[in-house]
């Protein structure tokens, strides 16, 4: 069995395992042990199974024979339409300590396996399938998601312990003044976790944009369920609604993008798929970046595909006449169809803005902290919000330079806004939430300035240290029963495991390391992002300065608020003795995942101590090397509508002139932020309250989250409420009135009908009956019952008849 067969099988199974667990828990969760405790075993087993399958796929990808001839692979795999498009070798990229190896261009498309598991339907040219698209990015995402999800399942087993018995929710007061008392929902929690894992894995493995959209929405609905897990709390149900509705805004744009792609390309599929007859059907990526372009030396350049050009030139094409290739090229040179390409890219990115909580749709994520903490760790750091970044990475070949610029600006604004808000937040989870938004901004910024590997690498490293941080905060909340950092302090003595794993997480997210030598995982990813921003600045003096400044400054703010969090929570003297006295270290099932995640947060950016000679190139085993294997084909696009826009190749940022500067700047700013945090909250030589009163307006701005919620309330919610009020009034005053009067009129008509019935029809019937009765009554006396009388009557009657006949005969003629 070669890789083309085994990978779809293994990953397909890995997707289906959580679905099976979800189905089992939905149907039988109630009977799974006492209070559904076995449901957690089922869910954890399923996700662990998915992790094992992902790990096997990883090793197949890494060590297996991927280079099987396409034809041979196809011959065995006709059954499920598998096609192996075997192009290019995996390029080697060294990361970490030796960046200097420049000059490896990935001109050719990355190696991937694409195919359809099942065709749902075919409507003309449009084929809707359940397909897969497996490349190194898919494999990396699978390993990351399943590993973190497995650890979170274990953690949730401890964290959700309260749900095993009756729960009294102290945050919900009923109308009778008592607190809400409800049965535990342990199995339901794991049921949603399983569905969530299924959706996320399905999204990652999906082979076409339609399928991505389906899983995209599934992820959305799962987050809705999980955020609103404590549904009786008003704040939780509001937050769930907010997350869902804000995501719909982004999805609307995504549908527009999908329509633009469908109209221009006629396919939803990402990669090329060979059908049963051996014809290769070009997917989205190879249509927008053709291998051979007429009169064009630079293959795989981003150009509007034929469909989009024809659409743009539809007024110049005579009916029924197919334009010649020359004509097409002429139109293409005039940038016909380019706008459509931009719209498609912006539309897809719009969906990612919603899902990845980018400005201006970032407002839902902090509120989503109403969910249980394992959910925050899973949904809001490693998986769901990562989906948006993943999709931007996946769709990278389609994005035009202008779209990338929009992505970069969105990312930069998000990064800065969220980081500043995190400075003043006092809710431990909200700090992390804004930190997440800010880090997602980093990823988007990186992708926007051309750092494909850097952005996705940061996605992976961030997933590890952010889920670690969230789970640490969950452990703290579990111990202290409060989210307010102002009530904590000094907890490191009470809960050392949590405190020191969280310290590792803080160091990782701040990007701690010895510049140019070694560092924690965040050091490498943040470093490469800053380097790419600097490289972009060199090429684009107009836009680049902002990006570089924000990327570097963001590092300082990140370090500041993370260590503010750590010092406020774990260091110093306890501020609330009641809380402190009740605090305790979490059970082993909760802190062991922390330790594992801490190990990953430290080392996921390192090269594995393996130098392997695989796929014809000697390379270190590392995440970046793997991601490098999935780098999209062709050069980064240059601006067409904004001609001065020039995206530098990512490898250029490995040049010492850029890399060294970036590393020093990033580490320097992070160190400044760290030292500031130490000064304010560690050794307390500076008083935060003084700064607060000195910059009162800035403080108010930040504590109110830049008034985004208020702004949206004025701009969107109020008008919507007003319009709904108007509509409701119209409904009540006009439509209801109309229907009411219609009803009244009907009643009148019915009354009139009733009169006719009563006085005419009924009367006639009654009179007839009375008449019949009186006749019968008067004839009664004739029937005496005397037999002899009857005989006499018969005789007399007969005689009378006889006489009558006789008489009439005699009288007759």
């Amino acid at each position, binding site marked *: 069995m070669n890789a083309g067969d085994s990978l779809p099988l293994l990953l397909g199974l890995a997707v289906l395992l959580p679905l099976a667990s979800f189905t089992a828990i939905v149907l039988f969760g109630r009977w799974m042990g006492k209070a559904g405790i076995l449901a957690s075993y089922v869910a954890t087993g399923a996700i662990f199974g998915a992790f094992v399958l992902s790990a096997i796929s990883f090793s197949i990808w890494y060590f297996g024979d991927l280079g099987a001839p396409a034809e041979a692979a196809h011959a065995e795999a006709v059954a499920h339409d598998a096609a192996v498009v075997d192009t290019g070798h995996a390029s080697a990229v060294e990361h970490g300590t030796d960046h200097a190896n420049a000059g490896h261009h990935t001109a050719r498309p990355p190696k991937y396996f694409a195919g359809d598991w099942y065709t749902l339907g075919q409507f003309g040219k449009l084929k809707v399938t359940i397909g897969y698209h497996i490349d190194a990015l898919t494999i990396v995402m699978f390993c990351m998601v399943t590993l973190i999800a497995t650890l979170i399942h274990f953690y949730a087993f401890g964290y959700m312990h309260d749900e095993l018995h009756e729960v009294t929710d102290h945050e919900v007061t009923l109308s009778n003044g008592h607190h809400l008392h409800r049965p535990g929902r342990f199995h339901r929690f794991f049921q949603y976790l399983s569905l969530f894992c299924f959706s996320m894995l399905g999204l990652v493995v999906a082979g076409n944009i339609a399928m991505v959209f389906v899983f995209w929405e599934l992820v959305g609905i799962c987050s809705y369920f999980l955020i609103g897990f404590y549904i009786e709390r008003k704040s939780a149900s509001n937050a769930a609604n907010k997350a869902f509705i804000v995501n719909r805004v982004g999805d609307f744009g995504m549908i527009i993008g999908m329509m633009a792609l469908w109209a221009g390309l006629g396919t939803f599929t990402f990669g090329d798929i060979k059908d049963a007859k051996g014809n290769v059907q070009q997917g989205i990526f190879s249509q927008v970046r053709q291998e051979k372009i007429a009169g064009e030396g630079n293959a795989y350049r981003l150009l509007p595909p034929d469909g989009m050009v024809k659409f743009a030139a539809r007024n110049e094409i005579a009916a029924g006449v197919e334009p010649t290739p020359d004509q097409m090229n002429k139109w293409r040179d005039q940038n016909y169809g380019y706008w459509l390409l931009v719209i498609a890219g912006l539309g897809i990115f719009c969906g990612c803005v919603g899902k990845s909580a980018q400005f201006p749709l970032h407002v839902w994520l902090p509120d989503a902290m109403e969910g249980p903490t394992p959910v925050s760790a899973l949904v809001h750091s490693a998986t769901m919000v990562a989906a948006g970044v993943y999709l931007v990475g996946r769709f990278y070949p389609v994005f035009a330079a202008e779209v990338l610029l929009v992505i970069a600006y969105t990312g930069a604004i998000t990064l800065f806004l969220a980081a500043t808000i995190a400075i003043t937040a006092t809710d431990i989870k909200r700090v992390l939430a804004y930190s997440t938004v800010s880090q997602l901004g980093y990823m988007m910024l990186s992708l926007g300035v051309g750092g494909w590997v850097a952005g996705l690498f940061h996605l992976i490293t961030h997933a590890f240290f952010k889920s670690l941080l969230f789970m640490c905060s969950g452990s703290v909340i579990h111990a202290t029963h409060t989210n307010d950092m102002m009530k904590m302090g000094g907890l490191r003595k009470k809960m050392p495991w949590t405190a020191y794993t969280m310290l590792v997480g803080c160091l990782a997210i701040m990007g701690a390391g010895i510049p140019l030598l070694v560092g924690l995982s965040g050091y490498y990813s943040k470093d490469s992002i800053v380097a790419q921003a600097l490289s972009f600045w060199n090429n684009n003096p107009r836009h680049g300065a902002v990006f570089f400044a924000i990327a570097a400054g963001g590092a300082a703010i990140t370090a500041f608020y993370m260590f503010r969090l750590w010092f406020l929570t774990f260091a110093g003297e306890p501020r609330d003795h009641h809380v402190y006295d009740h605090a305790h270290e979490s059970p082993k099932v909760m802190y062991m995942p922390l330790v594992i995640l801490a190990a990953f947060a430290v080392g996921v950016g390192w090269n594995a101590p393996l130098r392997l000679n695989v796929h014809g190139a000697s390379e270190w085993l590392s995440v970046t090397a793997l991601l490098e294997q999935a780098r999209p084909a062709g050069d980064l696009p240059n601006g067409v509508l904004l001609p001065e826009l020039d995206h530098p190749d990512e490898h250029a940022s490995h040049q010492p002139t850029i890399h060294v500067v970036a590393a020093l700047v990033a580490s320097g700013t992070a160190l400044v932020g760290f030292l500031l945090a130490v000064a304010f909250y560690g050794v307390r030589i500076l008083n935060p309250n003084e700064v607060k009163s000195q910059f009162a307006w800035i403080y108010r701005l930040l504590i109110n989250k830049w008034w985004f919620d208020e702004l949206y309330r004025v701009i969107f919610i109020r008008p919507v409420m007003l319009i709904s009020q108007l509509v409701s009034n119209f409904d009540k005053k006009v439509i209801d009135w109309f229907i009411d009067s219609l009803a009244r009129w009907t009643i009148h008509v019915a009354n009139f009908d009733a009169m006719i019935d009563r006085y005419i029809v009924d009367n006639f019937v009654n009179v007839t009956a009375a008449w019949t009765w009186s006749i019968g009554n008067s004839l009664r*006396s*004739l*029937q*005496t*019952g*005397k*037999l*002899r009388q009857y*005989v006499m009557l018969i005789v007399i009657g007969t005689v009378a008849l006889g006489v009558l006949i006789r008489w009439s005969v005699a009288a007759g003629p």
Partner: protein
Amino acid sequence: MDLLSQPVGVSHYLVVGAILFISGVVCMAVKRNAIGVLMGIELVLNGANVNFVAFSSNFLRSDQGHSLGLDGQLISLFVIVLAAAEAAVALAIALNYYNNHSTIDVDRADELKG
């Protein structure tokens, strides 16, 4: 009366039948005993039978060409059979009536009056 002076013909039979019929009707009208009433019925029926037979008899007819065949005789046979059946039913009624009322006075059987 010239009936007495003439040879026996249809008219004589008719007279007998009429006497039988009248006797029967009078018997039905005046008897209070249910058995007596039944007897009157038998007389009425047989009076009719005499008429049938008389009209049908070839010996009593002058116009031989228009014979009625055996129709009259057959009808009277039917009537006899019917009378027997009727008597059986009527007697059964009478017996039941006696069981319930300890009498067979038809004047007291007026429970179905209007």
